[in-house]
């Protein structure tokens, strides 16, 4: 008359597999294939098991690794990134210049390493700040509801309804060149996404009976938020943020491409492409290499973001 404890994978109400006649898993007779109608559901990317775990953790390790690398990357640069150090327009794999040199003979590898630092660290910073601001706004709106929620969310809606890239360009143009201003410009258009997502999660959780049950159990609003709401928001927020770093990398590079980053001759991935556009037919690697690095960063963030999701959702 008592429920037996069900744990782990044994909960499935699976009928016993008879040891006498093992259940055949494939059709016993060469009858028609199992009928499926219409479109079959996607099964690609449906990685499972150990291989998936290894791939996911490798990607997450790469994400951490690239962050550590970008902290020290200027120290790894073989040359001064702003001084001409060799023949101009050397192609990649030239002696002493792994990625070649630019139109006035500066070492591309050194410039890329320096650009990588600003690009990646700033992206992580923008994402983190956006997440923090957005989460605070989202949690406050979601927990309190009523007019607080209405006010905050209408504000967010307005931000989300305006074209982010254009607003970032305008803000950046108004504030003038410089790293801080670029970060501010992107941040202004970035936090509302997080506010919206976090608020949605919080509202969904607050509407669940478990929050009411927690209140009845005597938990105050802070405890309710801390123990019964926030832990449910964190996975979504972390996954969203890690998938988002790549977007920030691209947006920052785009602003820089438009000349809204640091003034020349500071090494910057986007600007190094746009300043060398004239070389594209002559020495294509000069404008292309910095752009490719942006792409690699963005690709890594996307893949690692998926890996983070796989790991978190698995629980």
């Amino acid at each position, binding site marked *: *008359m*008592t*429920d*037996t*404890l*069900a*744990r*782990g994978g*044994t*909960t*499935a*109400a*699976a*009928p*016993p*597999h*008879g*040891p*006498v*006649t093992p*259940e*055949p*898993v*494939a*059709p*016993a*007779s060469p*009858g*028609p294939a*199992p*009928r*499926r*109608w*219409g479109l*079959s*559901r996607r099964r690609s990317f449906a990685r*499972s098991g150990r291989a998936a775990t290894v791939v996911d953790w490798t990607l997450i390790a790469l994400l951490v690794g690239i962050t550590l690398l970008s902290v020290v990357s200027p120290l790894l640069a073989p040359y001064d990134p702003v001084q001409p150090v060799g023949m101009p327009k050397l192609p990649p794999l030239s002696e002493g210049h792994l990625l070649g040199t630019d139109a006035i003979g500066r070492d591309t590898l050194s410039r890329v390493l320096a650009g990588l630092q600003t690009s990646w660290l700033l992206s992580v910073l923008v994402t983190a700040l956006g997440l923090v601001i957005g989460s605070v706004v989202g949690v406050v709106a979601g927990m309190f509801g009523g007019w607080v929620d209405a006010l905050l969310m209408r504000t967010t809606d307005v931000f989300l309804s305006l074209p982010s890239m254009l607003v970032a360009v305008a803000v950046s143009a108004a504030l003038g060149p410089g790293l801080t201003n670029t970060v501010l410009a992107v941040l202004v258009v970035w936090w509302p996404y997080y506010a919206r997502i976090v608020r949605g999660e919080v509202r969904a959780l607050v509407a*669940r*009976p*478990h929050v*009411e*049950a*927690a209140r*009845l*159990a*005597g*938990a105050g609003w802070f405890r309710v938020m801390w*123990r*019964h709401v926030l*832990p*449910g928001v964190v996975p979504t927020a972390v996954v969203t943020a890690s998938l988002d770093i790549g977007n920030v990398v691209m947006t920052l590079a785009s602003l820089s491409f438009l000349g809204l980053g640091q003034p020349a001759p500071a090494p910057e991935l986007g600007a190094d492409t746009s300043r060398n556009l004239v070389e594209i037919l002559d020495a294509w690697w000069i404008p292309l290499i910095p752009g490719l690095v942006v792409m690699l960063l963005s690709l890594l963030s996307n893949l690692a973001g998926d890996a983070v999701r796989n790991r978190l959702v698995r629980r």
Partner: protein
Amino acid sequence: METAAPPRPETPTAPASEDGPVARLGGLRVSLERNGVRTQVLHGIDLEIGRGEIVGVVGESGSGKSVMSQALLGLLPATSRPVVEGDLQAAGLDLRTASDAELREVRRTHLGVVFQDPMTSLNPTMHVGRQVAEKAGSAEEAVRLMRAVGIPQPERRYRSFPHELSGGLRQRVMIAMAVAGGPKLLVADEPTTALDVTVQAQVLDLLGSMRDELGCSIVLITHDLGVAAQVADRIVVMYRGRVVETGSTRQVLEQPRHPYTRGLLASRLSLDSDRTRPLWTLPVHATVPADEGCPFTARCAFRQDGCSAGVPVLAHVPAEDDGGAAAAVGHEVACFETARVAATAAGREELDPLPPLPEVGTGAPLVAAADVACTFQVRDERGRRADLAALRGVTFDLQPGESVAIVGESGSGKSTLLRVAGGLEKRFTGSLRGPSGTDVQMVFQDAGSSLTPWMTVRELLHERVRDAARPEREERVRAILDRVGLPDAVLDARPGELSGGQRQRVALARATVVPPKILLCDEPTSALDVSVAANVLNLVNELRRDLGIAVMFVTHDLAVARIVGDRIAVMYLGRIVELGRAEDVIADPQHPYTRTLVDAVPQPGRTVVPLAGEPASALDPPSGCAFHPRCPVALAECASTVTGIQLAAVDGRPTSDVARHEVACVRTGAAR
């Protein structure tokens, strides 16, 4: 060996001809893939559906009854990569080898299906009439069918979207669609589970009359033996992917031969279950099913060592123990111990009576609500702002230690009353006195969502005893776990790792680890299997006796209300229409609506006369007595009673204490 269905001489093995069975499953085995793991769901089902026959397929969750119904329609979801073996024929077509075109043709002309939830089963962006016409062939035919299934103003409803219809009307649309084209076989998968009690009776009635008019066969899948008993000619009881007993409705109900069927029957609540003893319960699912032998062994009262040796196959119930050969025709059971089961009188062992209830005081009530009204701003189905009158003047009290069950259909305001009384809902008018804070605890319908998913049971329970000294906490937590019948091992489990019944026990443990003054229960058993639900009801009854807690228990099921309530309050559209001691309300209902509810409880061997119409909308309650449009004994004045109808004592009954019986009807007594 487990699938070795012996050839059964009495059934033709030839493909279905014009007068053969409408559908035939022979040794049907189905396995499905879930989350990459393949499970055998059906283990060799032998079943024939005769022409014009209604077959009720009964089983708890996990019995495979729904998978069987999907197989019967060729609708097994491709995503779970079904593997089907054995014989599977419907309407003369072998569904396993049929081409897509053949399959479509047979679905269009010979098969019909009614699913559980008509809201999700209808296309939300298409007019319901067009959806019927897709199968019926023309708009005129669709309108005719919609009229035939009792949809008022079918021409107008034709252009409605599903979300603009009530649940009952939606299910009628589904039925209209199912019977379009005059099918030979109708499969109804839990067609009434999502519906209110009175509407459920209507839909079952409609299904029965469809059979009578069209001569189609119906397979009625249900978890409720009572529902099957109401309309089925024959009942098939399934357990873990096998048929364990089959026979005519009378045979199965009156001479159940499988211990599981007996268990289902015995744990079924009815209006005459013994209230003074704990409910008889079937042991619930063992977590790890036995690897071999009869799958029911772990829960079986008749089990013997031999039961683990093999899987019993369906065999005829020996004629002699039925007292006559005629009685046993078609009655088959899959059990090694049939003889012993037959020799034991059907029924249940007597359980010790519950301790008597402490005398409920007549002093200061714990909760006193006077003329409480509660209106919410909502948007109606057309998007306009509207007032939803959840409570329209409720006067009610609850004595310390007393238990009151609140019964009503959806939209009656029963849950709102619960929340107002517990101080959880503050938007109301009228006066209310009652406990608040941690003196009020609540258990919810969906125990899973009422427990914080990422916290362990220990953390959840400790949260309630934070005031206690640290060493005392664990002790009290373990004590309450013991009281609700859970092993200490669950302390480190998260809710997702527990079964439905265990979660509801954890919820009860959390609510009572520090005994509250009042325990609010919002349909805590309606999502559970029959046998698990009985366990939870027993637990509620034990806890309130042991701890002296007052209980308010909301349910749509009168039989449940009778078990847990000292008193029963019947609600209709925001008002209490009848209030009295449980035995008085059930045995001698005064309000016509209560009478209907009592009649609508599916009870084997009793014909149900369904009440016409559906509950009116709380957005626009009828004037006067809100029940008058559906009331069989309404007078003209019922609609015009300006002040509304007040609860008044029934003649000749005590008026003052908890024994009083009140009714809100100008025709008091007319219900009888």
